[in-house]
C-alpha cells in the first residue's frame, strides 16, 4: 500500500455556533491518488479543502500530513501550507506581478531556492501548459483559462505533496474549461496526489481514483467512480446526480 499523504480524523467545523458545516470527517488520500469530492452546493466542500490547507481552523478533529499532526500548533502553519498546494475558483494571481514573477515568487521567497533553477523550472512548466509566450504578460492580459493554468503552475512550483483544487473551472467560460481540465488530467497521469472539488461530472469520472459524495457536512459515499456514477447507493446521491441530467 502506498504512503498516506493527507488524513483527517473526526474533522468538525461550524461557523458561528450554527450547525456543523463539516461533521466528523474521516478522510485519507494516498500517494499518487486522485480523490474527487462532489456534492450539492453548500455541503461543505470548499470548507473541507480550506481546513485541509489550514485556511480555516477546524473546531475539533485531527489533520495529519504524512502522519504528522498539523492542525494543533499555530506557529508552523506556513510550513505545512507550503507542502499543500491549492488553487481556488476565482482567479487569484497577483495582479501587480507578471506571470513569471507570479510563479517564481514563493519558491524564491519561501523556499529560498536558486534563482536560475527556479526560473528554468517555471519556463518548463509554463511551456507544458502552453503559456510560454505569456511569461512576461500581466494577469489582466490573460483569459480566465490562461489565468487558471498559471495558478496551477504557481502551485506546482512549490513541489507540493498534495494539490487541492476547488472548482477551478466554475468561473470559466465553457470553451475554456477543457484547456484547464486537460492540464489536471495530465497531472493525474503523472501521479500527482490531488483532492479535487468539481461540478464537471464527466471530468470527475475520468480523473478520479475515488469519488467522495459529501452532503450536509458528512461523507455519504466513497467509492470507485464507475460504481458511484452508474449505481450510487444512497438516495441523496442519486438525486444529486440526476440534477446533471436533462430529459
Amino acid at each position, binding site marked *: 500500500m502506498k504512503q498516506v499523504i493527507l488524513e483527517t480524523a473526526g474533522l468538525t467545523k461550524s461557523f458561528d455556533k450554527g450547525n456543523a458545516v463539516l461533521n466528523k470527517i474521516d478522510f485519507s488520500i494516498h500517494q499518487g491518488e486522485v480523490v474527487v469530492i462532489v456534492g450539492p452546493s453548500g455541503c461543505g466542500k470548499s470548507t473541507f479543502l480550506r481546513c485541509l490547507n489550514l485556511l480555516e481552523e477546524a473546531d475539533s478533529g485531527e489533520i495529519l500530513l504524512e502522519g504528522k499532526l498539523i492542525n494543533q500548533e499555530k506557529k508552523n502553519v*506556513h510550513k505545512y501550507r507550503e507542502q499543500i498546494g491549492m488553487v*481556488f475558483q476565482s482567479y*487569484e494571481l*497577483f495582479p*501587480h506581478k507578471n506571470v513569471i514573477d507570479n510563479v517564481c515568487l*514563493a519558491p524564491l*521567497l519561501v523556499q529560498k531556492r536558486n534563482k536560475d533553477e527556479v526560473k528554468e523550472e517555471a519556463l518548463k512548466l509554463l511551456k507544458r501548459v502552453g503559456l510560454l509566450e505569456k511569461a512576461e504578460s500581466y494577469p489582466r492580459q490573460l483569459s480566465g483559462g490562461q489565468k487558471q493554468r498559471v495558478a496551477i503552475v504557481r502551485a506546482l512550483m512549490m513541489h507540493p505533496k498534495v494539490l487541492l483544487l476547488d472548482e477551478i473551472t466554475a468561473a470559466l467560460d465553457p470553451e475554456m474549461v477543457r484547456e484547464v481540465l486537460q492540464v489536471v488530467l495530465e497531472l493525474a497521469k503523472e501521479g500527482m496526489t490531488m483532492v479535487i472539488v468539481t461540478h464537471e461530472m464527466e471530468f470527475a469520472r475520468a480523473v478520479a481514483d475515488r469519488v467522495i459524495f459529501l452532503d450536509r457536512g458528512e461523507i455519504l459515499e466513497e467509492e470507485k467512480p464507475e460504481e458511484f456514477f452508474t449505481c450510487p447507493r444512497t438516495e441523496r446521491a442519486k438525486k444529486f446526480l440526476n440534477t446533471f441530467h436533462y430529459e
Partner: protein
Amino acid sequence: MQDMGIQVLFEGINFQRLLAGLMVSLNLALISMAFSIVLGIVLGMIMTVKNRLVRLICRIYLETVRIMPQLVLLFLVYFGAAKHFGVDISGEMAAVIVFTFWGTAEMGDLVRSALISIPKHQYESGYSLGMTKLQVYIRIILPQTFRRLLPSGVNLLTRMIKTTSLVVLIGVVEVVKVGKQIIDASRYENPKAALWIYGAIFFLYFAICFPISRLSAVLERRLKT
C-alpha cells in the same frame, strides 16, 4: 513702466529669498509627509484589525484630527507645549509635529480603505503558497495598496504643501512670510508690490503642485493593473 511694480520681484535678491522661503515650506511638507506615510501605513494596518476597541480609538483620533483646524493644532503645540510643559520647541518642529499628526490620520484612513479593498483571495493565495503573514503583507498586499493609494496620497501631499503656509502664524519664515517682508520693505516706493509678490507666490505653489499631480496621473496610468 515704473508703475507696473513687477520690478519688485527682481530687485536685489528678492526672488531668491522667495525661493528660499518656498524651500522651507516644501521641506516642512516633505518631512511631515515622509513621517505620515510611514506612520500612516502602520496606522492603516492597525485600523483593519478585528478588535473593536482598537478600531474605536483609531476612529476617535481620526475624527479629532479632522474636526480640529490645523491652525488650532499648531497653536496648541507651539504655544501650549511651551507654556505647560516648559518645552521650548521651534516653529519648524511644531509644524512637523502637527502636520505629521494630521497627515498620519489622513494617510492611515487612506491606507485602511486601500487595504480593505484588496480581495481576501489575495491573502489566501499567498498563505497557501506557504508565505507568512508578514511576507504576504510586504510582497502582495502593500504593493497593491500603494497603487491604489497613489492618487489620494499625492492629493494629500499637495494639500500638505498648501497648508504649510499656516506656519507663518507661529513665526516660521517660509515663502509667505518672506513675501510679506519684501512687501513691507517696499511699501513706500512700490505700493503694488503686494499684488506681484502674492501673484508670484501663487505661481510658485502652482509650479510645485501641478507637476506633482500630473506625475501621479501618469504613474497611475502606468501602474494600472
